[in-house]
């Protein structure tokens, strides 16, 4: 049986946690096909514990390419390495997370393999009659869902939206095969040179990785009021999001922008404050697991997709909510002593 492959992202000495979520996606597909599940991990100085973790979380096989020249992401080099592996092992399905890496690397590879690729899927399934991969993704700003398949070419490729599933619990007794591969120098040649990485000063900008997002919109009234959003996000261990309006006004920078012309997110909790819910904003966050909306306009669109809606003045609600969360945390801390 041909294998199901997932891409495990390894960068700055760390395995990206979205790779574990992706493995769980791969696992359910592989089980339906009764096919082996494999992860591909490429990088430099990949730790044994990370390879083990991939196996404990569901991989039957791990293909490892460890080389100094793979320390940083260069699409041409990464693509060449993966194409070598694909050509040798011919997997049936190859999926990656819809991260900046996945969304760059996968289309580059799909073209070289002359196969189909579906972007940013939220649901993956197997067509019973054919065993084809059914890839479902939102389109037209999340207003429709389309199910797509790649009937005639292999591998069937898809990128999967991050946080649209949870990692499987690790099974420390699980065993798997680890295959180390090395390639000749020409595979590593490229016309691109990696210069440096500039880490975000603020830890809260990485909204696509966040489990909780507190987002503010025009209803905040002024830039200073974003302090309440920042504080609430920090208390909840979340990231700060913003609507396009407030980014255009300069209240928050572009990396915080959520929506059609910003980022698409699907955290466990999305708190929308002073956001009316324009369709292009909703397109970027409607797959969040839980949505709480706070808005003074009773008819705001955002309430239509919220699990809990609070109609009222955010300047009253937020300070009280912040105070209550602090109290709750204090109590919890005391209980745990």
């Amino acid at each position: 049986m041909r294998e199901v492959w997932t891409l495990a992202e390894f960068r700055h000495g760390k395995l990206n946690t979205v790779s574990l979520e992706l493995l769980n996606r791969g696992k359910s597909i592989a089980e339906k096909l009764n096919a082996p599940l494999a992860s591909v991990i490429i990088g430099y100085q990949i730790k044994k514990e990370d390879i083990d973790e991939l196996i404990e979380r569901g991989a039957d096989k791990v293909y490892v390419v460890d080389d100094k020249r793979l320390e940083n992401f260069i699409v041409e080099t990464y693509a060449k390495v993966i194409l070598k592996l694909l050509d040798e092992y011919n997997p049936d399905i190859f999926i990656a997370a819809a991260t900046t890496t996945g969304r760059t690397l996968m289309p580059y590879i799909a073209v070289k393999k002359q196969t189909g690729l579906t972007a940013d899927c939220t649901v993956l399934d197997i067509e019973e009659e054919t065993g084809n991969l059914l890839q479902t993704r939102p389109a037209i700003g999340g207003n429709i869902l389309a199910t797509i398949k790649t009937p005639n070419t292999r591998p069937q490729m898809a990128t999967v939206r991050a946080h649209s599933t949870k990692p499987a619990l690790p099974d420390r007794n699980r065993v798997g095969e680890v295959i180390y591969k090395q390639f000749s120098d020409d595979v590593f040649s490229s016309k691109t040179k990696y210069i440096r990485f500039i880490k975000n000063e603020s830890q809260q900008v990485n909204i696509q990785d966040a489990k909780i997002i507190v987002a503010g919109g025009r209803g905040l009234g002024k830039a200073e009021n974003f302090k309440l959003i920042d504080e609430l996000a920090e208390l909840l261990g979340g990231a700060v999001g913003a609507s396009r309006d407030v980014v255009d006004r300069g209240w928050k920078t572009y990396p915080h922008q959520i929506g059609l012309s910003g980022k698409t997110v699907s955290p466990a909790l999305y708190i929308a404050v002073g956001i009316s819910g324009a369709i292009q904003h909703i397109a970027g966050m409607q797959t969040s697991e839980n949505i709480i909306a706070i808005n003074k306009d009773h008819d705001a669109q955002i309430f239509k997709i919220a699990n809990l809606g609070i109609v009222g003045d955010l300047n009253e609600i937020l300070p009280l909510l912040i105070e209550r969360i602090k109290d709750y945390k204090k109590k919890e801390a005391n209980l745990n002593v």
Partner: protein
Amino acid sequence: MRIIVPIKQVPETSNVKMDPITGTMIREGIENIVNPLDLYAIETAIKLKEKYGGKIIVISMGPEKAVEAIKEAIAMGCDDGILLSDKKFAGSDTFATSYVVAKAIKELGDFDLVICGERATDGDTGQVGPGIASFLDLPLSSFTSEIVSVENGKIRVKRLVEEGYEEIEMMLPAVLTVVKEISDPRLPTLRGKLKAKKVEIPVWDAQKINAEEDKIGLKGSPTRVVKIFTPKVTREGEKVIVKDEKTLHQAVDKIMDYLIEKELI
């Protein structure tokens, strides 16, 4: 510098209204516009031209009316345009589209840069820019947020990634896909509009770009749409209205209960 900017005409989705009964998009009266994210690519090209001189060629694949999008780009400051239009292109997925655009770029001859928007707001895949780079076998910077320098046949850029920015240097020619942060698109000028009115936009078909028929249109697309359906977006939950001190506390209680019940705190 010779810069090629592939753009797409898309429906103006920011004012999309959904039919509350059927749950489908109401298409009547929806305007077609230049994909908003392509405006940043156009602006980036114009800025580079202002600094280094050269020429900007806009190409768009689509029906005849996509000429409007090309003309708008010319009104902003691009020089020439080419429309890629052929019945045989219909039904192209991202693979076939990348192929057609890459073939047209090859037909255009030498160039230094291809600059694309990050993705189109209708299809929302972001796959065509990287696909073009792959077909042309060129270095690629996706999610480009800043052009640091262009010198000695090399371009240095910053890319917006999850935890910050990556700075990379590529040999020219290269392909960029750009994010909003890179520029602030200008409006078309009156002079530009006059120029756009006069300029002839050649239409290139499959034959002109030497496209292999088994790589274009529906036939050349590896992916197939199985079905399209409307998501159940309405999950309107409980709504609490704050009227006074008492209801304010009740509302905050509700939020706390929700957070605790769902183990979000």
